[in-house]
């Protein structure tokens, strides 16, 4: 039942890879996110070199996001214009991120930066989501109306030049914030191996304040393009994409994502957000722990010598 992965150069139990793909796919379909933040730590735990794990799972994100975008596009839930602009920023960010990652690997600091990024971003977003959704649940339980949402848009967003209309999202804003957001997510996608949905969705909702109906579809569309570029760059620059690994993951992922998407209608939105917030927070803490726990061996092999 073991299979030898040609690029990762390790032998793994393949049914558990398919299962992992299915579970992460299910979570990603359920919450409308890529799920990369869950998968990378588990792959590393299974003994796959972190660089290969991060690069190979990006194509799992591409596959599960593709099926998501197809169904959202059918309902008019994808703003291709806004998504395209964010993807442009994402391409630049991914390019910079892959180079940054190479440099960090040479410095021997790649794992440190990955751990800090997980702790900071997942910790912050998870806490925010959990707090916001728990407040909403509490209000509903007590029969009070939900807290009024702050509908004002931040002023600084509207003073910027290069304004553009995005009818699908109900926005008339400068192209700079979406470009910058895309670029930022692109860097994260290269370093953390995540699609960045967990950052994009809150940012689009609470900072850009676009129509809620177009948020998930548009973020998935931008994620496909950014992760596709990341995958090609990782393969081209670092030769760390293992096609056998990613195929096994996405066989499970495609199936899991469909079941997750079907089930997602059964839960209340704030309960979903609370559950997702909790998962995000736990993964962030788990990854961040290695910064504070005494390592079993003070010496460690630094990856990234094979490439010159």
């Amino acid at each position, binding site marked *: 039942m073991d299979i*030898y992965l040609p690029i990762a150069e390790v*032998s793994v139990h393949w049914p558990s890879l398919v299962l992992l793909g299915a579970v992460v796919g299910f979570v990603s379909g359920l919450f409308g996110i890529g799920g990369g933040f869950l998968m990378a730590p588990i792959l590393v735990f299974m003994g796959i070199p972190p660089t290969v794990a991060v690069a190979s799972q990006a194509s799992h994100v591409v596959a599960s996001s593709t099926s998501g975008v197809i169904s959202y596009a059918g309902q008019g839930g994808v703003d291709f214009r806004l998504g395209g602009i964010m993807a442009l920023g994402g391409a630049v960010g991914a390019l910079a991120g892959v180079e940054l990652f190479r440099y960090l690997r040479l410095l021997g600091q790649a794992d440190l930066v990955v751990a800090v990024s997980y702790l900071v971003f997942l910790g912050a977003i998870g806490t925010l989501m959990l707090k916001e959704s728990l407040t909403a649940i509490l209000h509903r339980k007590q029969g009070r109306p939900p807290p009024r949402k702050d509908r004002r848009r931040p002023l600084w967003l509207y003073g910027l030049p290069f304004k553009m209309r995005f009818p699908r999202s109900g926005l008339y804003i400068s192209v700079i914030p979406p470009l910058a957001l895309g670029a930022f997510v692109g860097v994260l996608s290269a370093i953390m191996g995540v699609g960045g949905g967990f950052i994009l969705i809150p940012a689009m909702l609470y900072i850009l304040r676009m129509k809620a109906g177009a948020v998930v579809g548009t973020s998935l569309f931008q994620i496909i393009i950014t992760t596709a570029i990341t995958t090609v760059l990782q*393969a081209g620059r670092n030769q760390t994409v293992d096609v056998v690994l990613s195929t096994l993951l996405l066989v499970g992922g495609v199936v899991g994502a469909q079941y997750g998407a079907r089930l997602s209608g059964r839960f209340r939105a704030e309960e979903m957000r609370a559950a997702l917030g909790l998962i995000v927070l736990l993964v962030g803490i788990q990854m961040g722990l290695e910064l*504070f726990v005494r390592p079993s061996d003070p010496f460690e*092999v*630094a990856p990234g010598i094979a490439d010159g």
Partner: protein
Amino acid sequence: MIQIPPPPPPAVEIPPPERSVGTQDEVRVAAALTDARVRVDSSFSGASIVLYGAVFNPGDTPADVVVVVRGPEAPIRLVQKTRTFGIWLNSRPVLFEGAPGFYMTASTRPLSDIANFGELRRLGVGVDHLRIAAPEERRTVTRYGVRDVVVSRLGEDYLDWRRAVIRLKEATALYDTDPDGVSFVDRGLFRAEIELPAVAPTGQYFAEVWLFQDGRPVSVSNLTLTVEKVGIERDIYEFAHRRPWTYGVLCVLLAGLMGYVGSRVFRRS
């Protein structure tokens, strides 16, 4: 035991002959591998190769057999984690050039009983005597655009770092010492097993079979072993390294296609 860094390898090394050589008159060792080619295919999960051989020992002096297997050399980089303000941070990486990617010894008795420290060190037999080329003098160079990479001897810390290389390799079963890995099945006939873990590097491996008498090497037999990827594993690896950009684009297209097919199939059902 006093630990001193092993000496640098001799400047000129004569390539070892592929036959057994008698360094004294008649006492001789001859050995062979059951399989000199290890094929790494998709079901590869490590391999076990049997080495067998014969000792020609007409005298009464007992002889010890030591098998040393070295994998292809590969530079290894190490970082040391140190605690700063409660957070474990990485030190600057230190590059060890040319640590073997695989190293094992198997012997009839513990190595320290077979020969003395100096002899083992001279021959580079045993993980403690392994030559790991960390350059002697301190220098920092700019490498791959990164400044101040230490490629140097580490002063008094050197042994800590060296031991760490060995410890980390042992943890992944790439380095191994088996003090009773060589067993005599009959008078003069012995066998040993070489256990290759799944993470063993591909390339050329060299096996030395030493015969010791009274703490002196009296004969050696040299063998080679090739570990290579075959079939689809090889094709994918070569493709990914020869045409990395095409490979990346194909990976993405495959992923997109599977996502599309998945959503089609499930919409119908």
